[in-house]
């Protein structure tokens, strides 16, 4: 009887876990972003993984601006992480982004909602290669908001993003 109970419980947990994972489709291409933290939907253990195609399904936003680390004005296309987190039913107010070189920065979600920042996956109409700080980078509209030209926002403009962790910091 006890064994039957534990078997049933295990099956139930597995079913629930499968259900949660089933809501989010599996990436068919190379994984370029792994999201973890306070999220409700997963497609791999403890993570929600995304390939380019999945990210491009999100509403796209555009910014044309000049950054200190590029010559001239460039046109960027990307997504708002708020849309991504909404899809994952995430609960948090800050995302901790990690780059390939293990550089970590925390960006409040208000930067995306109020300042219109995006996580860009295209620059000047083409995907951004790793060599050129791709595939994903946080872009602020420095031309529209010149007051953002300071160390705080330069520090948050992380590139070569590989993972995102959703967390809630005390308000």
């Amino acid at each position, binding site marked *: 009887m006890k064994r039957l109970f534990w078997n049933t419980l295990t099956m139930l947990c597995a079913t629930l876990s499968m259900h949660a994972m089933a809501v989010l489709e599996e990436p068919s291409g190379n994984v370029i972003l792994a999201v973890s933290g306070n999220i409700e939907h997963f497609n791999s253990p403890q993570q929600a993984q995304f390939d380019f195609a999945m990210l491009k399904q999100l509403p796209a936003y555009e910014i044309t601006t000049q950054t*200190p*680390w*590029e010559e001239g004005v460039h046109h960027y296309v990307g997504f708002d992480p708020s849309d991504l987190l909404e899809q994952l039913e995430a609960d948090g107010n800050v995302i901790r982004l990690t780059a390939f070189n293990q550089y970590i920065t925390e960006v409040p979600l208000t930067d995306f909602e109020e300042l219109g920042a995006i996580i860009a996956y295209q620059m000047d109409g083409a995907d951004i290669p*790793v*060599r*050129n700080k791709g595939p994903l980078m946080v872009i602020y509209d420095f031309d529209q908001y010149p007051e953002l030209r300071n160390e705080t926002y330069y520090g948050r403009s992380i590139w070569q993003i590989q993972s995102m962790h959703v967390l809630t910091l005390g308000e």
Partner: protein
Amino acid sequence: MTPETPKPDQHRKRTLINLLLICVCTSSLLTLLLLPLTDSSARLNARQVFDSSRWHSLQLQLQTYRLMNYLSDLSAEDLPVNGNAYFQYDLVLSRVDLLRKGDLGRHIRNFANGRATRLLNIISGELELISLNIEHLENGRLDQVPIIMARLRLLDSQVTDFVVIVNQGANDYVTNKRAELDVQLEYIQWISVMLLCLSAGALLITFKLAQKLRRALRYNYNLERQVQAIRRGKVEVIGRMTNELKSSLTGIISHLSSLQQHSTEQAAKDVLEQSISQNSLIQTQLDGYHDLVLIEAFQLQPNVHEGNVRDQLEYTAHALEHIFSAHNIRALCHVDPRLPTLVDADYQRLHEMLTLLILNLAPFCTDAELLINLRPSKLPLLHQPAKHGDKATKMVQIGLRDAGAGLPEAIQTGLRANPFNPNNTVLSQIEQMGLGFTLCHYLIGALDGELHFTSSSGKGSEIWIDLPLGVGTFVAEPETTPAAQSIAILNSNTLLDQGLQALLEPRYTVQCLSEEELAILALNTTEAPFSWLLISDKATLSAAQLEYVTQLQRLSVKIIWCSTLAQQHPDVDADAVYHYPITLSQLTTLLGASD
């Protein structure tokens, strides 16, 4: 008398004001200088913090070691590497690109006389050469790993050199920038000290000026008191003079009246009548001049009381009879029936104002008609109290319209000027338009009234005086009731036609008659459709016209004409003769007495 302010003091005051201005201007310029200095500091500071060349050069070194680490860990089981070798390689190259491009690239270019850039080019070149080996590795050739590792080890010293140079360059850069900031801070300190000195100077000058201002205010206060005292004295003296002259004039008038009563000759009576009128006019003028002094001293108090507005206006008009006669002015006085009989006003000042205005207007409407109208005004009440006693205050308009020569330009300019503007002194107004107009202008202002006018050379003038009077309510237009008598007015094509019509219409059935209509009526009718024929503004009548008049008289039409015609045609027995100014009471008396 207070002595005049000494000239050296004025000179000192001017110097202090100039010094204050110099202080303020210099302070402003110095403050302007501060702006670029502070802006530059902010920029330098921001750049110093942002240009994290050290961080990126160390990241290059770190990525190189990571690439080496990745390669050293590769074994046959890891093949194929599926782009991971390229990925690690690209991470290194992305750092190189970052150090060569943008603000950071420009910044590093100057380090160690360009040695940093040369080293970076070498590193970049070496890394580009490795790309071929990486490609082989991606194709499954594990033998490329030692080659790549060897090349990377050779590159290691150059990367380390690069990091050292960048570190030293960044230190030098920061030191230079700090030195620049120190210089700028020194400038700011100097400017701040100068601003402090200027502020202290300005404070001192302001204090001195405030002392002088206080003295000047006290001086002004004393002067104002003196001016007030002089004005009071002037009012007192003029008041006494006026009273003495008026009592003498009253005595003269009473003597003249007595003489007139005892005189038997008409010519003597007429002369005495004229003398009485002139003396009365002088009395009015004296009152006016006294009022002008009171206005100047801000002591005029209107003496408002209830009175019969029609009677008062007719009284004023009759008082000017000899003036009208002297200038051959055919005047007509009309009060709008919408005005109530009893109105609260300062009748003495109203009389003065109208008398002086008409007296001064008369020379410009010689041999012309003059209509004097009193009617409700369309102007709103602005600053006056809404009620006077138990009567509501309303704006009432006195209109003076003549067909004379028009007002001279100087008088028009004077009347357009605001009498209470400090630049328009009484003296300058008198010099411009004479005492009478000036007094009238000031009196209207003192009674809270307004004067507007229009004048055209050769076509006459129209003056509107709007005054607040205690009217109560305006009477609605009286309904036309069938009048007992009908009057025909022989058209004279002058202003008098419409004036007479307006005057008679409320009481009589009035019709206007042209000369042709008169002829037709006289010759073809056995019964005239009117009982009176009023002939106005004619110096003489032609034989034919006289014939028509006689014919109408035969048809029981009564004739009323002016005194000039009565003198010209003594053979025609007119039923009534009127004199100028024409008033309603005169016409009513004449028409009533002859019925």
